């Protein structure tokens, strides 16, 4: 009797083993603090990841309100990716503190600070609030507007994903290389489109465009916020009209929330205005980082218009 049972049991165990071995590895659940990062993770992770951006790209990252679905998504996540440099200081620490997902603790493999390896630009020299309300002692956090730094961040993300899925190294490296090829092709287009604008000056609404300006040889002549995070005042805006005249400013760049104010200022400065978000969108469908940057480049090229020819 006993001997008769051995064969079926062995067969059953063997089948179990084979089935388990053939089961595909579960996809990594990734949450990112904003859509640009989500797009890059999707490109690199491919089929190995399921990615969700916790914001839609329309938000001011300082004013994000945490919703129940956000907490649920972070709770289930294997990987968390943030811009860093304190861009998400107002909500990420509280969120991670409440969710208590061990895998996502800073220092753990699942916590990816995408700005870890980038070279930050310091636009607020001090650490005192006298320098402004919205200051970032670790460096300006809007590095995602520089495709060059996004490439470095992509490497950081790739390496972190490899640590989590070492068996998939080749696929991850290949995906990253493919994304970089697309980025390279896009960069050539963007550099060509903005080459005539080199040295041109513009006014920004918020302390956000320094990386982009440096990448493409543009100059920031002034800022609508008198100090980072402080609301524009009539007196300051008046002074910007003079600045615009002195420095031949031809473009005012604002976020949607201050689009009207930007248009008013542009009219006074006899300049054009452009309303540009600080990130790609992910409302129904992901817009994609490269598509977003294409729009940004076009907005600047169009904004400078004939003056750059």
């Amino acid at each position, binding site marked *: 009797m006993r001997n008769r049972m051995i064969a079926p049991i062995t067969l059953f165990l063997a089948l179990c083993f084979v089935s388990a071995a053939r089961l595909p590895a579960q996809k990594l659940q990734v949450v990112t603090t904003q859509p640009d990062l989500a797009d890059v993770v999707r490109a690199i992770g491919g089929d190995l990841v399921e990615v969700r951006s916790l914001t839609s790209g*329309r938000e001011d990252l300082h004013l994000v*309100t945490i919703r129940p679905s956000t*907490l649920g998504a972070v709770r289930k996540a294997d990987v968390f990716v943030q811009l860093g440099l304190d861009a998400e*200081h107002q909500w990420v620490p509280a969120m991670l503190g*409440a969710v208590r997902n*061990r895998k996502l603790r800073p*220092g753990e493999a699942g916590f990816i600070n995408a700005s870890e390896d980038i070279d930050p630009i310091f636009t607020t020299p001090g*650490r005192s609030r006298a320098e402004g309300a*919205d200051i970032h002692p670790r460096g300006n956090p809007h590095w995602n507007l520089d495709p060059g730094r996004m490439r470095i961040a992509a490497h950081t993300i790739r390496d972190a994903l490899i640590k989590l899925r070492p068996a998939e190294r080749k696929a991850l490296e290949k995906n990253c290389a493919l994304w970089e090829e697309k980025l390279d092709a896009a960069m050539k287009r963007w550099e060509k489109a903005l080459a005539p604008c080199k040295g041109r000056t513009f006014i920004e609404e918020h302390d956000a465009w320094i990386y982009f300006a440096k990448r493409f040889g543009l100059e920031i002549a002034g800022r609508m916020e008198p100090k980072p995070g402080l609301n524009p005042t009539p007196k300051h805006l008046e002074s910007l009209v003079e600045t615009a005249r002195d420095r031949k400013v031809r473009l005012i760049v604002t976020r949607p*929330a201050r689009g009207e104010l930007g248009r008013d200022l542009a009219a006074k400065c006899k300049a054009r205005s452009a309303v540009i978000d600080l990130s790609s969108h992910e409302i129904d469908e992901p817009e994609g980082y490269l598509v977003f940057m294409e729009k940004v480049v076009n907005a600047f090229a169009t904004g400078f218009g004939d003056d750059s020819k």
Partner: protein
Amino acid sequence: MHTKESRTRALAALGLFTVLAASAARAQDQSPTPPKGSVEELRRQFAHELADLRADYENRLQTMEGEIGRLRAERDDASAQGVSDAIDRIRSELDDRVGLGLSQTTVFDNLFNPAFGVVSDLILVASGQDDSFSHANRFVLRSVEVNIAGNIDPDTEYYAVLHADEDEIELEEAYLIRRDFFRETASLKAGRFNVDFGRVSPVHEHDLPFIDKPGVLQEYLGGSLRGTGLEYHDWFSLGDSGLLRFSAGITNSPDGDAHVIVGPLAGEHHHEEEEELFGERGIDSFAFHGRVTAQWDVGLNGVFQIGASVAWAPEVRSHLEDAHDHEEEKGAEDAEEAQSDLQKLVVGFDLGYRSIDPTDASGFTFLAEFLINAEEFGAEEEGKTDFETAFGFYAYVDYAFNREWALGVSVDWFEHRLDADRDWFDVGVFGTWKLNEFNRLRLEVRYVDDGIADESYWAAMLQWTVLIGSHGHGIDW
């Protein structure tokens, strides 16, 4: 057969023709050999040697360039490794010095452990109240709050809140939170803290959307219900778009705390003259509280929340002890007011909805909270205890036009906790201007119909709240 022979013959002829043609071409190419020792011969030799030398040096150059390339690559690798090591070392040193290893927490928290913050709350009050409280028609420095927050270890945080006003300095809260308590999502709070009851009660006054805690919270809970003890928290998801959170606590000295400009506790601080609603607890007699709340995403930006809270003190003893202490000083009248083993139960239900457009921070917040207060009172020693059940609520709507400006209205009604036939009603309008994240002005005008004191009046208040250093509140849930 004939065909095969013909083909062989044709191939032989073609081969012979090819050999002859090649020989002829070679003969044509070759110049006549110069005589030995002639200038031509020497020139030819020189050219050969020069070519050999050039080839030799080119080979050597190629070898050396290869070697240089290899050494350069090695040096770059070593340099990159060196730089990387140096960065790691510096980061590590910084981590040790300023706690960067904890990553970001909130503004500047990342730089210091513990993080310090100060909140100052200055209010200019104008009131038409006949029987003016001490706060009427004057500037009131309601609070200067010092917050201390830090990590003890990766699983344990510590918080302390010191409150100071023109008259006193008080330790309002001091507690630790142990995370991952049994479950990853669970935490245990231990120390002195504002207990988790309802939405507005635990909030410090300077963080409210209006100036004062609603009157019903002042009347039934004494403002913020604060206790020394333990509180357990946990939560879990309800599908993809909801969550349920609950807490339960035990404290031995829960009491109300309020710094009120307008309301039943106006001008008073609970520690001074107001009776402590829940009283001092003996070691064998605790008070209990709990809360369950659920919230869901609604649409693109909305969140809907419901909740229920309960606080129960089975035995209120303090006033007996207080009265005995005062008995010798004040005489027998105080003894008659003594209370012992009297119970108090407060139950609250809250309902909220908020919808904020993340593009410009515009949107509205609605919150209503209904409370039932059941309280035993009277002098038990003489068998004269009585029991009163009173009901009250408050509700407010706050509309934010953008990041800076908001306008709201609130209404508040309740029955007196010991005499439900008398009631209180107030309604107010408040406008808020956030100059920035750390600097806020608020104007509030409130009408009060106080059926308990039988008077009605207006009050106007201008509040200036500023924040320096670190200040964080976790999640609004």
